[in-house]
């Protein structure tokens, strides 16, 4: 029997969500000026090897007028590769106004928003 040409290896979505949540929570903990994180969900998010993609709004970052994503391999408890792009709040506004482009394949329309938890600052 020939393999289905449309089949591809899928990841455990629930597990990937948990790992993403863990990474997001860690970043909020270690970056005091991080305001929000957007988890970018692509059409092939469930495909094996598709990284966790985060757009992070950090008031302490430097404004460059462009969005440059950086890739990271899996490390420790972060068992998925990830791609993180950091922007300032002003750049995030510009992104929403389409004055600054997101990386190819990234969209805010299907992104999941994570705002800075109050408990992080109270701790």
């Amino acid at each position: 029997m020939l393999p289905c040409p449309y089949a591809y290896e899928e990841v455990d979505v629930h597990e990937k969500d948990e790992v993403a949540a863990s990474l997001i929570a860690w970043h909020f903990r270690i970056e005091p000026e991080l305001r929000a994180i957007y988890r970018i969900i692509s059409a092939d998010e469930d495909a094996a090897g598709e990284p966790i993609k985060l757009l992070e709004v950090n008031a302490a970052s430097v404004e460059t007028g462009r969005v440059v994503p950086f890739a990271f391999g899996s490390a420790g408890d972060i068992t998925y590769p990830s791609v993180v792009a950091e922007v300032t709040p002003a750049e995030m506004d510009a992104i929403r106004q389409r004055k600054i482009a997101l990386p190819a394949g990234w969209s805010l329309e299907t992104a999941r928003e994570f705002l800075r938890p109050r408990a992080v600052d109270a701790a």
Partner: protein
Amino acid sequence: MLRDVATVAPDRAGWALAYVKQGGSDFTMYQLLSGMPGVPICHLLHYLQMAGEKIAKAYRFRDTDTAEDRLTTEHVAFSRFIQSYLGSPEIKQRYAGKDEQLREIVKVARKLAREIEKLAPAVDRKTSPANAEYPWLDDGSVVVPCEFTYPNLTLLTEPGGRTFLRLLEMAIADFERIRIH
């Protein structure tokens, strides 16, 4: 015999441009390798260390009067460059009104830059033998770089790690605009 290299002796500006181009290429390799599964961390960090050193040399060639032969033959302190870079008018202007944040960034960036410059085998070998190229001795055992995890340089989970990379990218991309002295 055909030559595809310039035969005119370059001035400091020429050297600076050459170093920022090569440093930029090293940084691109760091980014490419970072996105490839299965690549040992030592290779990513090797390119990051080379990029940092060349970027530092580029700025020092152009903005200081450090002797040319020192810049071309010696390892230039990347951490010292980061200090100068983060004190530049361009960076100060981008962080205008955010002094406390800039102070924190400087603290974090200097620490990361110091860890990165120690990856060069010739730097601090006796006290910090861990480097990105050659096996070293640790407590009687030989450590192989491609099997080492470099825990101090996991930029995904280090405070300021992502901002540091952004600052480095800016140092390359905006070289024409930024002056350290």
